[in-house]
């Protein structure tokens, strides 16, 4: 088991490396580059732009920029040559050993061009809201999808099954952001106006989420704070759940139907077991096996859905950060966000594979 995990982690390294190259290539191939953000600003002169480029190291050849960003070569040296740090150890080792201070490999994501803050701190701040939103949605959607899918399979062709089929087709075709907008119109529009249209906390009640003042407020009124977040969470979570549940409930239904038609289900019935036991012990356990892998593969979509949902509901998370970084051509921030996301995706897939190996006794490492 341990060996298997180690092997999988090692296999993931070239993929992550490839991701950094792809992301970097896209950004650097862009016409104008980061200075494009000044394109419509008449006060920024050509000289200013050059200065800006120099300040951010954008005047260097692309491989050098990439190496610096990765932290492979010494940031103080211009050019590619130096792979060995002043301390005499390779630069691509983590900070504690390598001695360098800048670059991804040293845990340093750089400084955001648009805000001047460190990318790591910006990501760290945005991570919690996204984790709250995506985590809540994931749990609810997995439970509901499992229930709906299983019951559709068991009560095949029943009204419930037909209704959930229609729901799945429509839900699957529904753009996340449209659902979000419609929910806002319904619940936050002038008609009902019972739920907040966006944000994570009620700004009139509490300091902005994540600040020290907020945590002080949270410590003072924990229930009020949680209820406030819950109210703000409701619409975004519904949006994410409805859109994602559609496909998954069909997946589970199909998987469950497949299980229910297996010989061992007939054996279980022939033993005289109750239908409930046959369904939820014998068939269900087998139906869950492919779903475990599927959930791992769905993690990227959860993130994608989160970007969309966060944008619509002004949720101060990673999605918002991505959109802002894209809009402002904030390369260090974008690179950081994309890389973190990719690492999470690779990690989620790994987790799914391991989980699969754990739940299916037939898998050998």
């Amino acid at each position, binding site marked *: 088991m341990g060996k298997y995990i180690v092997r999988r982690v090692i296999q993931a390294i070239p993929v992550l490396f490839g991701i950094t190259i792809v*992301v970097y290539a896209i950004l650097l191939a862009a016409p104008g580059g980061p200075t494009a953000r000044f394109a419509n600003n008449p006060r920024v002169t050509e000289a200013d732009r050059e200065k800006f480029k120099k300040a951010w190291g954008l005047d260097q050849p692309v491989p050098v920029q990439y190496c610096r960003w990765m932290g492979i070569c010494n940031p103080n040296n211009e050019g590619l040559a130096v792979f060995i740090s002043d301390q005499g150890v390779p630069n691509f080792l983590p900070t504690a050993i390598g001695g360098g201070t800048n670059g991804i490999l040293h845990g340093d994501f750089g400084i955001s061009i648009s805000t001047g803050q460190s990318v790591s701190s910006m990501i760290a701040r945005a991570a919690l809201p996204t984790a709250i939103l995506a985590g809540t949605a994931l749990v609810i959607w997995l439970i509901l999808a499992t229930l709906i899918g299983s019951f559709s399979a068991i009560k095949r062709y029943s009204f419930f099954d037909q209704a959930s*089929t229609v729901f799945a087709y*429509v839900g699957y075709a529904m*753009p996340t952001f449209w659902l979000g907008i419609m929910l806002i*119109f319904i619940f936050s*529009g*002038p008609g009902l106006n019972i739920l907040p249209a966006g944000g994570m906390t009620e700004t009139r009640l509490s300091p902005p989420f994540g600040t020290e003042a907020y945590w002080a407020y949270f410590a003072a009124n924990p229930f009020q704070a949680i209820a406030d977040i819950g109210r703000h969470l409701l619409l975004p979570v519904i949006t994410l759940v409805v859109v994602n549940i559609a496909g998954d409930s069909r997946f589970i239904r199909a998987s469950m139907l497949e299980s229910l*038609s297996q010989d061992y289900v007939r054996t279980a019935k022939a033993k005289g077991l109750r239908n409930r036991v046959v369904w939820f012990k014998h068939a269900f356990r087998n139906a869950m096996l492919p779903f475990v892998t*599927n959930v791992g593969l769905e993690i990227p979509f959860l993130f994608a859905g989160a970007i969309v949902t966060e944008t619509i509901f002004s949720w101060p998370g990673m999605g918002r950060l991505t959109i802002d970084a894209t809009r402002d051509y904030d390369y260090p921030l974008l690179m950081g966000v994309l890389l973190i996301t990719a690492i999470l995706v690779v990690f989620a897939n790994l987790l799914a594979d391991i989980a699969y190996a754990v739940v299916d006794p037939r898998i050998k490492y």
Partner: protein
Amino acid sequence: MTQEAKPLSTPTGSSPIDVEADAIPAIGMGVAQPDEAAALRREEAGADYEVALESLNQWQLAWRKFRHHRLALMGLGILGALIAVAIVGPILWPFDFNSIPKPDQIVYQGRPPSLAHPFGETGGLQRDVLNLVINGARTSLFIGFSSMMLGVLIGTIVGSIAGFLGGVLDNVLMRTVDVFLSIPLLFLILVASRVFGNGNVLLIVVIFAFFSWMGISRLVRSLFLSIREREFVEAARAVGVRDRRIIFRHILPNAISPIVVSASLIVAANIIAEAFVSFLGFGVNPIYPTWGNILSNALTFIPLGNWWWPFFPGLMIILTVLAVNFVGDGLRDALDPRTRA
């Protein structure tokens, strides 16, 4: 394939939404029991059905099966109508950017659907939503379909090269695909549309195509790997048929069905993704109507409760994606030689 639509892989195969023989009973056809029937038929292996055997080619057979798929026919009808509207509509009733409301008409509030304006009117510039939706259909469908075609072309070429040549090249290409698929593609599309797109429809098409080929290339490659080992390819090679001819005459025709099915998924995914990217303002120049742009403009009018403004373009997206998915389902069943007519 882009993010909004998941590949929805199922335990048995590569379907969207629904699986195996189970696609048909979805809505309103609850009586039939295709699975049990199939099981029974399997038991009846070797039974004589005394069917007069007509000789039908692959496409006649597929059409015959497709015809029996009620939802797919409906989807095809809807899709045909939408495409017709997208082509003819803007000619008959073009969107006029310069049409600005007369002074006495200037009201901030939009107007709800009425007989004169069945989809209502927007707030602000008082545009007719129906007109916007019709003109948006042209751009949205154009982007959806043409990016799919370009993506399928790229994917087929890459997959063919990887699958037919194998070796190091195969490895490099497939690892590249792995890399692309490890990042939520919507992120990449978003960034690429922002930095390259420039609001230009054709560039957007290219960008979407560039992020739509990975699934297809994997599929084509695996088909190549499995088909090139099959007897008829061996036979062709044995009689000295050239590689190129083997690819185009023997292998690709066999790969068409699964490609067509995934292509339908790509169309659906790209239509949604286009809407999203435009919605964020990174897609098609926001002064022109696409379904995403209409939604984007509507967002600022939430406090006024002009629900019809975002409702109808979204409805069109849902309708299109539903239709495409139904057609995809129908194609999957029709092109699957294991299902019966």
